[in-house]
């Protein structure tokens, strides 16, 4: 009995380390090693096909923050993130509440709403590029319905309100809304699923007790259910935010950089400047900036959740 206990003890100690070692090494090299290498390259003069690791300091970063295209990218990312997360959460929560009403054919509706998430963002991009094409898409229906001023969707170069800031005009680029529609279509099913599972986790007794106390359905939602949704809202926001900050495939297939870079994002700029223009140092600088943005959202979340776990 005592030898068996000893064996089990040593196996439990050693096995996890042995099993985790390959992945720790692989992640160390392929994730953290390459992040370090990317940061190193971003400080170099490697802006042609021939590698050149002369140290140039923050030159590539300074170039970017003076660049029209990169400034547009930051503006676009800001508004894309706000609209994408906001609308996805509102629609997702709305759908979840509707489905939670024990309706007929619940599985059917749930699947329909979740289905877009199963598609690749590339497919979504191509489909919505056709649908929102100003001359061949939904505008044909609007035209039949007698709409005179047809929306130009992602071709629209208007920015409202046009405030001059740096070298760009700051404001909401109208074209970004077309991309937001496609992104929301893709992801609101996911937010619905998140909310639905959390709605289902609320014990019926809680609602029953409130009803007995004379609360209306609306009050139950406002005072009991929605406050209980906060943790889900937070984690959904974190997930959507990191998707939004690193988005590439949807925009690349749907609009590309767009006229006057109204739908351009750092991911697309990074790809084009690195792999088309061979400006490796500038490309890696964009990648590092993207990483910093994502870390700004993810790191506080990780810290707070690990603290909670410790408690």
């Amino acid at each position, binding site marked *: 009995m005592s030898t068996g206990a000893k064996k089990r003890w040593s196996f439990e100690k050693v096995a996890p380390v042995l099993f985790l070692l390959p992945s720790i090494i692989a992640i160390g090299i392929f994730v953290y090693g390459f992040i370090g290498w990317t940061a190193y390259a971003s400080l170099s003069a490697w802006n*042609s096909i021939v590698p050149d690791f002369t140290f140039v300091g923050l030159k590539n970063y300074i170039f970017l923050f003076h660049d029209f295209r990169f400034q547009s990218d930051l503006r676009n990312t800001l508004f894309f993130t706000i609209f994408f997360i906001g609308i996805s959460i509102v629609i997702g929560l709305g759908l979840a509440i509707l489905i939670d009403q024990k309706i007929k054919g619940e599985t059917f509706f749930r699947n329909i709403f979740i289905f877009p998430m199963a598609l690749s963002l590339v497919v979504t991009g191509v489909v919505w590029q056709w649908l929102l094409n100003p001359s061949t898409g939904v505008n044909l229906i609007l035209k039949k319905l007698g709409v005179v001023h047809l929306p130009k969707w992602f071709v629209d170069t208007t920015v409202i309100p046009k405030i001059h800031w740096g070298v760009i005009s700051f404001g909401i680029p109208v074209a970004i809304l077309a991309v937001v529609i496609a992104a929301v279509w893709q992801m609101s099913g996911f937010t619905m699923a998140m909310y639905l599972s959390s709605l289902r986790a609320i014990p019926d007794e809680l609602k029953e007790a409130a009803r007995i106390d004379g609360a209306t359905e609306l009050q139950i939602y406002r005072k009991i259910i929605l406050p209980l949704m906060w943790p889900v809202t937070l984690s959904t926001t974190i997930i959507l935010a990191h998707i939004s900050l690193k988005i590439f495939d949807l925009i690349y297939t749907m609009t590309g950089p*767009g006229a*006057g870079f109204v739908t351009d994002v750092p991911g697309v700029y990074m790809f084009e400047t690195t792999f088309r223009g061979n400006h490796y140092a500038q490309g890696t600088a964009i990648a590092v900036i993207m990483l910093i943005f994502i870390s700004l959202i993810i790191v506080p979340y990780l810290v707070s959740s690990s603290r909670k776990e410790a408690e």
Partner: protein
Amino acid sequence: MNKKSKVITAAAVMTSVLALTACGSSTTGNQGAPAGGGANKTADAKKSVEIFSWWTGGGEEEGLKALIQLFKKQNPDVNVINAAVAGGAGTNAQAVLASRMQAGDPPDTFQVHAGAELLDSWVKAGKMQPLNDLYKEAGWTDKFPKSLVDMMSKDGKIYSVAVDIHRGNVLWINKKIFDDNHLKPPTTFDEFFKDADILKAKGITPLALGDKEPWTATMLFEDVLLGELGPQGYDDLTQGKIKWDDPKVKQSLEIFKKMLTYVNSDHAARTWQDASQLVAKGQAAMNVMGDWAKGYFTSDLKLKPNVDFEWTTTPGTGSSFMVISDTFGLPKGIKHPEETKTFLKLLGSVEGQDAFNPLKGSIPARVDADPSKYDVYSKQAMADFKKDALTPSIAHGSAMPQGFVTQMNQAINIFVTQGDVNTAATTLEQDAEQNK
């Protein structure tokens, strides 16, 4: 094992498996190489040649296959690896090529445009072998036009073999619209704007443009530059003898800006094919595009040259030929130099060029190819190719380094929406300085 240790073990196994598969898939994903990694090794046992290109669709793939078939017939003991990488205008292929070259694993031969794309990158980096001996051996010294050979040479050394020629300065015209309005194909900017005004007054879109991918707008602008500066001035500009903020360049930007007032309003949502389709369907009268548009008209849309559509050179470029030429070179440190030279010899032969070009829709780079194998458009282009001044295209990476081309696409994209001539000229001059 108790329950807890089972769970730990399972989790550990899962994590390592996931980590390993993730690494595996990301390496293949990054390289985007065709499923030839394994095939490579087995093929090494016998003689083989790996041909790297981005010819994966339409006529170009058929042309490449015809070439490979011809090569196999002549060299039955050599295994051909067709390492074509799909992706618009070679974007993906060029990224894969860059990583392979930098990793010291070059393909035996690869597709590269004559001019800066070859000379300012791979030749400058010392990755290519000169082919002067091959040219002498095959007797090619006077078979290619001198200015084309110059686009493939540095310090007297020739670095690649040209297989095809495309023309970039063609104005495609819907014949019915022009006939109905009693218009003649314009040859100068004045005539162009006169025709455009007449068409616009009748509610017809004069010029079709599809600049969803910004190179099409850059191409239109480079044709304006060529028309305004002439072949000599154009060469001086691309060689840095004229600055990009020169008054002549600014004048070209003004003309370009005026042209943009005649284009379809949804140009930013269209590709070049969509724009060509507007002309084909009679929804627009003219379109500036390379002569791959002819292949699109005749093979995809089944239009007849000189019946459904006609063509002329873009305004002011009557005696110039904007060259886009696909060539193949011989990288250093490859595994099969002998077989590759045999393949390059076939590429440069009349037989090889006549097998490839009619299918791709381009014209042969050799001046002594057989014109009877080509259609009416190509016959005319072949005649012009012999006598016109050859000017390398900027938009397709022949006249200026790729880094400049990417930045020029950006500057033109901004110019198309904002129309600020001075900003565009200053930006272009800065870009040219940065990419020297």
